[in-house]
């Protein structure tokens, strides 16, 4: 039986891992290569690298880091951040990424999803969306949660899957960094409309938040988090033991 995945997310800037709260106030945490290796050894099922640098030089450093990580860590790597063109897909896939996550790039040009799925396969294309509840409507935000696009999030994701996205990351802006648990209502709304794997992001503060996630929204494939793993508030090996004890199928 397929297992629920636990995915640490590493926001990388200038070759270092950083993580903010509610996307503001970044704090330097550690080296991406060291962290990736550490996570892989303690049972992470997959890793996500978000490139949050904006400069060409930063992109170069990021690609080097990715290569170094992919040479030493043998679990799936997803790369996101700054993915706007097929050339961006090519660049990160050629440096060891297995999947590529598009967010703002797909909002600007939705056709990128189709083009990338056609060229690399749907399994390679992850649609990531930053979502907030605005006036009772789940709404997509662009540029790391800064710009309200006015797009209906559920509709955006549904059409994204139609265009060829093979996996969805739902990041709730409302629960991100708050550490009071995942946005179960938002996740439920997304799972009701798609039949590709959905990864929950934003809000994990303790082990029990993952238990509630997989219990309350059983369709969810994976839980993603950053700071609670980086700062050791939740140990992945320990988290998986807890989940297994609760009858949730995980890889141990």
């Amino acid at each position, binding site marked *: *039986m*397929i*297992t629920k*995945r636990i995915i640490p997310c590493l926001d990388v800037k200038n070759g270092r891992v950083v993580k903010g709260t509610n996307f503001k106030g970044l704090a330097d945490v550690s080296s991406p290569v060291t962290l990736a290796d550490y996570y*892989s050894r303690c049972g992470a*099922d997959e890793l996500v690298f978000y490139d949050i640098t904006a400069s060409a030089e930063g992109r170069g450093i990021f690609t080097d880091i990715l*290569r170094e990580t*992919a*040479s*030493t860590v*043998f*679990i*799936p790597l997803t790369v996101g951040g700054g993915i706007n063109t097929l050339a961006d897909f090519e660049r990160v*896939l*050629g*440096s*060891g*990424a*297995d999947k590529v996550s598009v967010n703002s790039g797909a909002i600007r040009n939705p056709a990128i999803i189709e083009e990338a799925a056609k*060229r*690399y*396969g*749907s*399994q*390679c294309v992850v649609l990531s969306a930053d979502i907030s509840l605005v006036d009772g409507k789940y709404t997509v935000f662009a540029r790391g949660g800064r710009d309200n696009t006015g797009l209906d999030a559920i509709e955006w994701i549904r059409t994204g899957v139609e265009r060829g996205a*093979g*996996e969805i990351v739902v990041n709730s802006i409302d629960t991100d960094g708050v550490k009071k648990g995942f946005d179960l209502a938002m996740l439920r709304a997304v799972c009701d409309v798609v*039949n*590709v*794997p*959905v990864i929950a992001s934003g809000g994990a503060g303790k082990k029990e938040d993952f238990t509630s996630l997989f219990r309350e929204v059983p*369709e969810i*494939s*994976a839980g993603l988090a950053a700071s609670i793993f980086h700062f050791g508030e939740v140990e992945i090996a320990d988290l998986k033991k807890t989940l297994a004890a609760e009858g949730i199928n995980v*890889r141990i």
Partner: protein
Amino acid sequence: MIGIVDYGVGNIFSLCSSFKKIGAHAELIKEPERLAECERIILPGVGAFGDAREKLRASGMEEALMREVRAGKPMLGICLGMQLLFEKSYEFGEYEGLSLVKGAIRPISDVIPADYDIPHIGWNVLDFDDCELFKYIKKGDFVYFVHSFYGAECEESVIATTEYGARLTAAVKSGNVYGVQFHPEKSGDVGLAILKAFCEIEVK
């Protein structure tokens, strides 16, 4: 030397790194004639069947690869590389495969319940028969899958399966030809152990 067939399909970066990690000498092979120098062959692949088969043929790799395999060299197809070994695929049309393994590639939606996600993405248990490929791993070990199509009508060649609402083919063997649906290069220590075992299969 292990030759990783490079015909412009899929991400082979991790595969190269995996062999390095287990201390095996592997090289990317772009020129078909160089396959003759290889002791064993890896056929990778990601993407669509029809397109990959065409690239394999157009690059001249197919002819060289078939010659080496018929001469008895061990070959391992990975993911789409495994699917290419079959007689036929029904992915976005109907395509002929290499016919090294009896059977056809069909959508997993034919056999799994409607409420299961497609693609089948993630870590799943490998249920396997005794095979030299699995000599270093144990029952219940997990490997990483990413696929929407699977090997069907291949009962006589199946050496491993996985459970995803139905029994899906996870690995096949036909003589010196092996194929795995999962990604050993992405399956942590378990995957590396399978690649190591492949490197040790006796060359006749």
